[in-house]
């Protein structure tokens, strides 16, 4: 049924609209406008900021130093998204094709870590990846076994195992981000695959295509809306991630959010931090615009 015109029941309209509209205006639009205005300001003295309409902050943000961090953050986020897609796709397929009895449990299994505190999950992963952690011990065990196998066939044993540095570097940041963002990717993929007409897969198999070919030529193209949704929903938070690079990264693994935080907390350069924040927001908008443009094109070709 069609929507009701707001004029036909003004009282009911204002009763339900006034609180959310007022809240959004007061506690979202106004704060965001402050950030926007500050990004055109400059520091005078220690605590005062003059909004002078200067573009200096943006000019400074295009320094190679900051541009590099921006590009790097984007690269890390893209890599994390790609890994999540590759790892998550089979999981989403398993969710789609599993029997009715097991599906809720598998779904719960994917969702439960998502409901666990992000900080706790990051910390748990840090325990695993530490030099004394289980990841290193498992690797060490494999190393010892390989060494033993070599002596068994009469070769020189491998040199003794040295724990590898798995924490406080870019590798740790990527693993950490994959760890916390995987459910974001699996759920949209699952909802797209679930809607897919399974007889199409059967038809493809009947007509002689192998499983891999069916997957690449039938399942993936049909699941494309889910893939795009998953990519967006993973890429955007990964790009703005603060906690994982802060706790798990080394000095060279700073991402854009860490730089923003530093401007506000330590460097006390709020106008510059505000400019960087808005550049990050603009980057999000561009991503979303690209996605909706793609959607439009896909709609027209059909």
């Amino acid at each position, binding site marked *: *049924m*069609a*929507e009701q*015109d*707001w004029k036909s029941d003004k009282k009911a*309209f204002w009763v*339900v*609209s006034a*609180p*959310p*509209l007022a809240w*959004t205006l007061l506690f979202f639009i106004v*704060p965001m406008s*402050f950030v926007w205005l*500050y990004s055109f300001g400059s520091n005078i003295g220690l605590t005062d900021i003059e909004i002078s309409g200067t573009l200096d902050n943006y000019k400074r943000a295009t320094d190679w130093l900051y541009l590099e961090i921006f590009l790097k953050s984007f690269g890390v986020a893209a890599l994390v998204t790609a890994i999540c897609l590759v*790892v*998550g796709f089979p*999981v989403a*397929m*398993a969710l789609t*094709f599993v*029997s009715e009895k*097991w599906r809720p449990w*598998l779904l*719960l*299994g*994917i969702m*439960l*870590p998502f*409901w*666990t*505190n992000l*900080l*706790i*999950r990051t910390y*748990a*992963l840090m*325990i*695993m990846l530490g030099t*004394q952690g*289980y990841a290193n011990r498992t690797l060490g065990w494999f190393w010892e076994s390989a060494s033993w196998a070599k002596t068994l066939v009469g070769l020189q044993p491998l040199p003794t195992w040295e724990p590898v540095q798995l924490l406080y570097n870019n590798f740790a940041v990527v693993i950490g981000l994959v*760890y916390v963002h*995987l459910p974001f990717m699996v759920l949209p993929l699952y909802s797209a695959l679930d809607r897919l007409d*399974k007889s199409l*897969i*059967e038809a493809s*198999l009947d007509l002689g295509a192998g499983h891999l070919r069916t997957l690449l030529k039938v399942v993936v193209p049909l699941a494309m809306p889910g893939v795009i949704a998953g990519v967006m929903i993973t890429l*955007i938070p990964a790009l*703005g991630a*603060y*906690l994982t690079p802060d*706790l798990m990264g080394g000095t060279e693994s700073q991402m854009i*959010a860490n730089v*923003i935080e530093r401007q*506000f907390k330590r460097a006390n350069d709020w106008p510059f*931090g505000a400019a960087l*924040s808005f550049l*990050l927001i603009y980057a*999000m908008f561009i991503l*979303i615009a690209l996605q909706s443009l793609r959607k439009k094109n896909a709609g027209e070709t059909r």
Partner: protein
Amino acid sequence: MALFARTPRAPLEYTRTLWMRAWVGAVMVFLYAPLLVLMIFSFNDSKRNVVWRGFTTKYYEKALNNDTLVEALLNSLTIAALATLASLVIGSMAAIMLWRFRFPWKGAVDGTISLPIIVPEICLGVAMLIFFAWIEWPNNLIWPLNLGAITIAHITFCFPFVTMVVRSRLASFNKEEEEAAKDLGASDWQAFKDVLLPHMRPSLVAGALLAFTLSLDDFVITFFTSGPDTITFPVKVYSMVRFSVTPEVNAASTILIVLTVVLTAVALRLQGKNIAVSH
């Protein structure tokens, strides 16, 4: 789920192929091994985290006797409860507004309301910092008023999620039911309370669960919004992880994980019952 199935495998039973099981199993190990190790080693009688030295519960005692940790947890739960309540009300109102009415600038309003979902946490945190500094929000109020700024920030990013969930549930509502109620003499309020609200209930449970978890989980926005004396659980754990890794963190984390699992189980139970009743 016997690993070696007796019946032949149908073409679409992908979950019965070995590689698929191995893949899902590996992902599950990846997701759960860190959490399990953390939980097991919270009972470890050793300062260092990784070598098992015997069973103890002393770190639970220490964590529960750590006043700032308990206070932080209480603060977090209070904020989450308040934010959930307010988000549920505001979020449902927004959902009803967008579902029922046609009004000018609707697209823009719709987009703006869902914007906090998309805007990076760090940007929202920064915005809240500037906002509360600008209006000179006092940060020496008595408990629980000192949590006001954090709660406001949490409502701002939680309620759009409630709106999203409730709105998708409203889409399946048959408006004729409401008209029938009104024909039979129900007032606007009665029609809402007795017809629309029962239909919304599963989405309200889901929305509340989502808002509560998001609020309890949030670190970045709270980090920017909290005054010098208000500390929440994630902020406290952050400083403990950052500056002094002690097994207390394991114990406190385990308590919170168990709490999350119990709450989730209760909520799922409730929701299951709701669905059963409404059918």
